């Protein structure tokens, strides 16, 4: 098997775990580099296609959150829909305990309340900005389409207006622009088409970081860059063949293309 065949076969089998010697071949062979770029674009589309948007699941999931005692069986059991489409607990069949004395019930209530408060303190997730960005991305598969079509200037302006910024041409083709809810604020969510595939940019004027924060979570690799006086920007890709240095270069290019108007 030639090196080219081995490299391409590995790309079509396990593109996320390529051995170093094959990666080295990919960097040296022009044909294989071109093949890898096409394969990476296909891989991005493949993952986007698999991430079905299970929208009506969100309401069910929200409804299945704790509503009684923490840790009860009803908490974790997902909802079934009844004939009217209303979520009901499939296992809402546990009989109420009988024969307990009143004082025990009161004591148990206080103990449970104290335990619940303790649990809330311990169990409330203290998520990172990067984690929240990745979670947001997973819910927007449409944003990862590979395309040459740019959004209209009017649509882009409308998304950027409230952030007091505009995007100069140096950023590249912006194929997606949306104003998204993120940590209680509306933020611009853009997708810039790069040679390596779609790159997502979120402008986070309400979130500050002191130094660049690199992350690699749930197949998303990216960086959060500090933007003095304007919070930060998060730039990420799903293409695992793009290294961190390349992501930072893309992030800097986008940052340089931002013109702040306020």
């Amino acid at each position, binding site marked *: 098997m030639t090196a080219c065949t081995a490299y391409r076969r590995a790309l079509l*089998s396990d593109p996320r775990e390529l051995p170093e010697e094959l990666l080295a071949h990919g960097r040296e062979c022009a044909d294989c580099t071109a093949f890898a770029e096409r394969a990476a674009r296909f891989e991005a589309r493949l993952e986007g296609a*698999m991430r079905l948007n299970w929208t009506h699941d969100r309401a069910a999931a929200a409804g299945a959150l704790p509503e009684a005692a923490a*840790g009860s069986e009803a908490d974790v059991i997902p909802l079934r829909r009844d004939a009217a489409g209303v979520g009901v607990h499939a296992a809402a069949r546990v009989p109420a305990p009988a024969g307990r004395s009143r004082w025990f019930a009161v004591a148990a209530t206080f103990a449970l309340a104290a335990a619940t408060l303790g649990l809330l303190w311990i169990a409330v997730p203290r998520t990172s900005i990067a984690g929240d960005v990745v979670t947001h991305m997973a819910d927007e598969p449409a944003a990862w389409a590979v395309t040459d079509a740019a959004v209209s200037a009017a649509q882009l302006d409308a998304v950027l207006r409230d952030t007091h910024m505009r995007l100069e041409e140096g950023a590249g083709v912006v194929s997606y622009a949306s104003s998204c809810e993120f940590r209680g604020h509306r933020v611009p969510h853009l997708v810039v088409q790069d040679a390596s595939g779609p790159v997502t940019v979120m402008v986070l004027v309400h979130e500050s970081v002191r130094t660049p924060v690199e992350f690699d979570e749930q*197949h998303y690799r990216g960086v959060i860059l500090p933007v003095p006086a304007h919070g930060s920007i998060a730039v990420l890709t799903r293409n695992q063949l793009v290294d961190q240095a390349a992501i930072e270069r893309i992030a800097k290019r986008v940052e340089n293309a931002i013109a702040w108007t306020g």
Partner: protein
Amino acid sequence: MRDPLVLNQKHARFQALCQSLRPDLLRFALWLSRDRAVAEDVVQESLLRAWKARDTLEDEKAAKPWLLTIIRREYARTFERKRLTTVNLDDLVASEEPGLAASDAQELAELRLAIFKLPVEYREPLILQVLMGCSTAEIAEQLNLSTGAVLTRLFRARRQLRVLCGEDTSLDPEE
């Protein structure tokens, strides 16, 4: 005797874990079953089984493969209990993602149709790898295959998809 507070914390963590994995578990079950209602039932029953057996999960890091195993078994049981109806793939694909722009929807729909058309022995490892982020070794363990067999199936799955989607396959390696 186990400390009730520690037990409650463990259960709360387990619950949070299930909630965070649930969307991907639903997607996995749908790609496996090709039926949204079956997928929801399978995941619901699987989470119920997982909750009942929660104390047997010693390492939370092993939760994802553990839940995947439960879902695969539950799906197999569903398959045994009733003969599943034939799925119209075009209708199934058309029912997903109605909110996308036309060109994106077309592209995604073609790819989804191609994925649904893959034989399950190729579709399943591909879903485990691309959607669930499993390594080749993890897929091999799930499917009780050698890593070589998994890599071959993944290679064939991608090749078939590329052909079905009209990709340029002139430079693709042969078997």
